[in-house]
Structure formats: structure tokens, C-alpha cells
């Protein structure tokens, strides 16, 4: 296990702040920075308390003054509570605010639907000018942070909560998909640590049965790497998207829109069904319960290929 991506992000941010006086760290009482020594940058760490509208407005005001603020809150508070500020103050202003949104997807686990963020990709993808990134592991989070610093516009960095296994994926370059595996029978596209890992597991399961699939990590949902996605889906009878997000408007929506326009292909979307989590449990339990697993992806793939009977659980999704 590598450290949680949010801790890797934090540690890199603290290092970057020491050398770059433009960088600010705006906290909203998250606790992520407890005990952190910012050294020479101590004056640029500001805990603004539990007040997300003010948080985003302060970030916009700093960014309009030539600073580069990193804003810290949970994904659901950033994108639903403070949405109007993201839209009007940050996106419309085209300002270089970086939003580090933790506890995304189902990663808040047993904390429940008030803390789950299953709508954030749909929202952020709709706002003009935002770069929207879901790193698949801690290293990818560091690479995304480093590359985000000098982007001219705003960035939404979708982070989880707990540690996830490292991914053998090569360097992360914002705006470019990572092709993790090649296969001619079907294409799997995913974003986020658990969905990407589930796709790799599904690929292993399918390979054992002689089915070879391509696996693509779409860490940057916006701007979308349209050319690479169309290329990765060329010639296959169907593609499957997998995300820790409601099935509406996120990766599945983006891929379906893209393929409809450029290369019509059947798209099956795996993600959280159209419901709030109705069971109690940790992130892994919820992912399992709602079918965001390698087994379910593999069964869906076989069903799409007409090879085996339908997954009995397929009706859920």
C-alpha cells in the first residue's frame, strides 16, 4: 500500500509551498493538516473554518490577485454546497484555483450519503474551463498536483479517503489517458483507484476464459482525451465504463457522448445505480454491494459479448 492519495497530495503541497510564494493552502477545518509544519510558508496556510462559500470566494479573490490557492474540503461540500461560487467566482473568472476534494465517490463509506460524492464529476464536467482529474493512486495524485501548479485555469482534483494499492501505470500526464492493457475483444474505461483496479481484475478473469480486453485509465475527465478514447474503442463490439459515481453524467456519460459523436459504439455504464446508498458499510463493502467489482465487470463483458448467461446481478445496474 502507498499512503492515501490525499496524504501524498498534502505532503507534496507542503514541499511546493516552501519554494513557491504564490501557493496558498486554504483549509476548511478538514484535519488533514493537523500537526503539519509549513515552515517559511506558515503564513500561507489559512484555516477558514467550516464555511465553504467563504472558502471558495477567498480562493477566487486570492487567485484574482495572482496567487495559486489549493482549497481543501470534501468533494460533496466543494461541488454541491459551494457550487455557485465554483461557477460564478472561479469558473467564470477563469481563475487558477486548485480544489483538492477528498472523500469522493463512496470513500466516506459508513459516514453515509451525506458524505458520499456521487455527483461531483457530472457537475464539474459541466463547468467551462475546469480541468477535472481523478488520480488512480498516490503517485498519480502527486503528478497531477505538480502539473496543475502552472495551469492557467481552475483544477478539480478528485481524491479518496483511505490508502489504495499502487497502480503500475507509468507516468500520469494531465489530459492524456493511460492505456493499461491491450485486447481486441472489448474495451474497459475507468477512472478512480477502485474502478481501475476492478477493470484490471476483470481483464485477468476474462483472459482466463480467452477474452482479451483493453483497459484505459481516464484520469482526466476534462479536457477529455477524445482521440485516444476513440482509438481505444475502435473495432470492438462494446465498451464498458466503470466509475465510483452515479451512472449519470460522469465518465460513462462522457464516453457515451464522445463515442456517439465520433464512432457510435455500444456503451455499458457501470457505477452507482440511481439511488443513495441504502446499506451501511465501508467503501469496499459498498463497491461490492453496488457491483463496482472485477467480477461484475467481467460478467457484464461476457454478457455483452453474448458468451455466457447474464450476470444474475446485472439487473441492479
Amino acid at each position, binding site marked *: 500500500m502507498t499512503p492515501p492519495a490525499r496524504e501524498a497530495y498534502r505532503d507534496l503541497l507542503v514541499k511546493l509551498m516552501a519554494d513557491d510564494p504564490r501557493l496558498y493552502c486554504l483549509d476548511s477545518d478538514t484535519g488533514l493538516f493537523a500537526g503539519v509544519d509549513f515552515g517559511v510558508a506558515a503564513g500561507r496556510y489559512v484555516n477558514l473554518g467550516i464555511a465553504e*462559500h*467563504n472558502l471558495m*470566494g*477567498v480562493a477566487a*479573490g486570492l487567485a*484574482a*490577485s495572482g496567487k495559486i490557492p489549493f482549497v481543501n474540503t470534501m468533494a460533496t461540500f466543494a461541488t454541491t454546497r459551494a457550487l*455557485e*461560487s465554483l461557477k460564478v467566482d472561479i469558473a467564470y473568472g477563469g481563475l487558477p484555483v486548485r480544489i483538492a476534494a477528498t472523500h469522493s465517490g463512496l470513500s466516506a463509506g459508513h459516514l453515509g450519503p451525506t458524505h458520499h460524492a456521487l455527483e461531483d464529476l457530472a457537475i464539474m464536467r459541466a463547468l467551462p474551463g475546469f480541468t477535472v482529474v481523478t488520480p488512480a493512486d498516490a503517485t498519480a495524485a502527486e503528478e497531477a498536483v505538480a502539473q496543475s501548479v502552472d495551469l492557467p485555469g481552475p483544477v478539480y482534483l478528485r481524491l479518496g479517503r483511505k490508502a489504495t494499492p499502487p497502480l503500475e501505470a507509468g507516468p500520469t500526464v494531465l489530459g492524456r489517458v493511460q492505456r493499461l492493457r491491450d485486447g481486441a475483444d472489448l474495451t474497459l474505461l475507468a477512472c478512480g483507484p477502485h474502478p481501475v483496479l476492478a477493470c484490471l481484475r476483470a481483464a485477468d478473469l476474462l483472459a482466463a476464459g480467452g477474452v482479451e480486453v483493453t483497459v484505459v485509465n481516464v484520469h482526466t475527465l476534462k479536457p477529455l482525451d477524445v482521440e485516444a478514447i476513440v482509438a481505444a474503442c475502435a473495432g470492438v463490439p462494446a465498451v464498458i465504463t466503470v466509475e465510483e459515481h452515479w451512472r449519470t453524467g460522469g465518465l460513462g456519460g462522457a464516453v457515451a457522448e464522445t463515442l456517439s459523436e465520433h464512432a457510435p459504439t455500444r456503451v455499458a455504464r457501470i457505477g452507482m445505480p440511481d439511488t443513495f446508498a441504502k446499506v451501511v458499510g465501508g467503501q469496499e463493502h459498498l463497491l461490492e454491494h453496488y457491483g463496482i467489482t472485477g467480477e461484475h465487470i467481467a460478467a457484464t463483458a461476457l454478457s455483452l459479448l453474448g458468451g455466457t448467461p447474464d450476470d444474475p446481478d446485472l439487473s441492479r445496474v
Partner: protein
Amino acid sequence: MSVPASTTDEPAPNEPAPVQVTDRIREHIVAMCAGPEGGHLGGSMSLVEILTTLYFDVLRVDPADPGAADRDILILSKGHGAIGLYAVLAERGFFPVEELATYGRPGSRLMGHPVRMVPGVEVATGSLGHGLPLANGFALADRDRRCFVIVGDGELQEGSVWEAAMSTAGLGLDNVTVVVDRNGLQITGRTEDTVPLEPLADRWRAFGWAVREVDGHSEAELRAALTAGVPGRPLVVIARTVKGNGLPSVQGRVESHYARLGERQFARAMAVLRARARRRSS
């Protein structure tokens, strides 16, 4: 006495703005309300002395270099006062007065709420409750410059204002000043009949702010209040104003909120304003 032309080589004259400037600004506002789209008449007329005092007497700004690093910041959080702001910016020399005639028309920079493409406008406003959070950020970025936010009194019903007000005081941002355009009215009626704001001064004091209360149509009172801050504390100036001020037929009435003036209404309003200007200069 003639109106001095706006110049760009005197960024912050220390003389009070001649009364004629406020008269002309009111005429510009009325003219914009007679355009094809109409405009927020009442809340722009109530702002005239506040904006004029700030732009001609208080703010460190250079119309020739609106983005100058050492400028003060002004945010019109009540963005529906846009036509008042445009009129003052034009008179102060940020763009030609003639451009006001394009307001609301296709191709113009001047829309119903201010946006950053207008010289002198720092941030887009219009949705209420955004200005003070933004000002906190501007003020945090450079504690040596003053940041002014003009809020409407109805706007104080937005929770984000109070989130931000707590934060301003908590961060000790004494370079932030809020001016409340206390005209007492919102779209449906009196603020006090909608969601009461009083005791307004006490509320701000309880949030850690220094409070001054003035006649919002007196440039002398505004100037004195805006330049008398308290070290360590942000300042709020509650400016008692009259919505639609200058036009007796609409002033103090909720109907003044938005107006599209027909030809006869426009002519009558201009006549009233000019008679008032003559009375004041004689």
C-alpha cells in the same frame, strides 16, 4: 461652475467630487433605463453618492491602468447596481462616457450585471452574497491595500455574507470595508417586512466589526466614515439611502427596482433631475 473633465493623470484627487458629477451620473442611469432593456433604476440611484465618494475621493485607482498592482479593490456585490457603477466608471475615466449608450445592446460590454471585461470591474457579480468572500481573498493576498465591498441591505439575507463577515473579523482583515446600501427595500417590499435586518449595527458589532452609520447621500459623511477605520477590525459603513433617490415620483417605492422608461417618462425624469441640479448649483 463647469464640470471638470475626467482625467487619467490624477488618479485620486483629494477634492470632493463636484455635485455636478452625481447629477450627471443620475442622468446616465436614467438614460440607460430608457434603453431597450431598461435597468435596475432604484438600487442604482441609491448608490450614486457611495460610488462617487469611493471612486473620486477614497479609492487608490488609476483609470489608465485599471489592473495596477498597487490599486485598491472595489467589489459591487449588489451587482444589480451595474448601471450606477458603469456611470461612475465612465465619469472617472475608465472608459468613454459615450460607451454608456451601448448598455444592454448587442455587442456592448455593458450588461445587466458587471463582468470583468468592463475596465475597472474586478469580478463578476450579480448573484448576491459573493462580494465579501471575494474581498476576503483580495485582502488576504495583500494586506496593504484596501478592499471595499458594496452590499445591498436585502443581500444581507444571504448566509454567505455572514460566513464571510465572521471570517473577515477572525482573520483581522482591517483592510476590508463593507458599505451597506441601506435603502430599506427589496423587490417585494420593505426589508423589515420580509426578513428583518435590525438591529443591523448591533449585528455587525457582534461579528467583530467597527460600525459607522451615515447619510448615504452625503458625500461628506461617507468620506469621513470611509477614511476612519479602526486598526485590527474590519469596518462597515451603514449608508442610509433612498431607493430611486433623485426622482420624487419613484423614490422610496418598491416599483423603482427595475424600470424601462418610455420616451415621455425619460423626458420627465431628465427634466426633474436637471431642475434639481439647477437648484443645487444656485
